[in-house]
């Protein structure tokens, strides 16, 4: 029998995912065997081992803890239903990572448009002269201060700026730069060409860069 509570603390029993694209390992193999044997404890172990990181992914994509929790629940239920067809070509962590991304994006698509004011990305792209030079001089950015309080404030501001991007740009940015999807994986997820996916991420970064300019680009 698979016994998730044998070690006393789940933190010690079930090491967290190191990276969404980790390779699993023997822990996964034992867990998978127990899951396929239908052991109830194995399901609990799966949720405890991978749920935290899946929730972070959902939270980054959805921005709301309640919605992230819903997406994680839907993702696990979907995973439980698909366990029989899981071929083991990727690690359990990678497989669950993809499933929670799908669950979060489906949730996002099914929602009515949010009322929060979003920026127009086109307004945030750099402008150039007829010769192709910048119309405005670019200012080197300063390094943020080391003090924890200022760092917290800065990160809060960055998070708010990311939230101001329209979903069509924010989601590709998060999937590529935070969730580690390759350009090909991102293109598959967005159902666009690889080049279109790259352009979407690039424009998102450019727009975010412009939104952050007052924070980092101000001359001291």
């Amino acid at each position: 029998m698979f016994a998730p509570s044998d070690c006393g603390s789940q933190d010690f029993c079930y090491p967290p995912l190191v990276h969404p694209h980790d390779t699993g390992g023997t822990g996964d193999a034992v867990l998978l065997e127990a899951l396929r044997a239908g052991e109830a404890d194995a399901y609990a172990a799966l949720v405890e081992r991978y749920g935290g990181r899946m929730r972070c992914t959902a939270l980054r994509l959805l921005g709301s803890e309640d919605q992230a929790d819903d997406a994680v629940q839907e993702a696990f239920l979907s995973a439980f239903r698909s366990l029989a067809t899981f071929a083991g070509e990727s690690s359990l962590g990678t497989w669950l990572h993809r499933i929670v991304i799908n669950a979060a994006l489906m949730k996002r698509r099914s929602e009515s448009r949010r009322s929060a004011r979003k920026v127009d990305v086109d307004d945030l792209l750099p402008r150039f002269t007829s010769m192709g030079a910048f119309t405005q001089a670019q200012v080197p950015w300063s390094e943020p201060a080391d003090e924890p309080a200022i760092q917290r404030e800065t990160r809060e501001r960055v998070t708010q700026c990311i939230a101001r991007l329209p979903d069509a740009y924010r989601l590709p940015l998060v999937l590529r730069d935070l969730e580690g999807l390759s350009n090909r994986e991102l293109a598959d997820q967005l159902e666009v060409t690889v080049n279109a996916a790259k352009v979407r991420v690039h424009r998102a970064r450019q727009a975010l860069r412009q939104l952050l300019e007052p924070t980092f680009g101000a001359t001291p």
Partner: protein
Amino acid sequence: MDCAQFKDELHEHYMDRLPEGRLPALEAHAGTCPECKELMGMAAELPCREFVEFVSDYLEDELQPDRRAIFDRHLEICPDCTAYLGSYRKTKEEAAAALSTGPYVPRGLPPELIRAILEAREG
């Protein structure tokens, strides 16, 4: 004109800000200095607009070596693109840092959520 002044004035030329009548002096220096002549060619070959369009490929090392060399030379003469590159890189870093701290640090799921997931499976 020395090479440093050439670089400064080349940048002004590129920005459409070179005073009238200075271009012949630039061209004259380029005629005597192969390195500056190459820079002048590079500046014409790669406008900032194009640098910015492919800055992501540059950062992610996806450019062919000869193309990358053109980007590197452009950076030598263009403080705007140098600043833009730095701020673009910083944007990626700060976004990653912001969404990897605080509520985005993986923790165990709340017990009630674990319970809800397992009950939904059984139900």
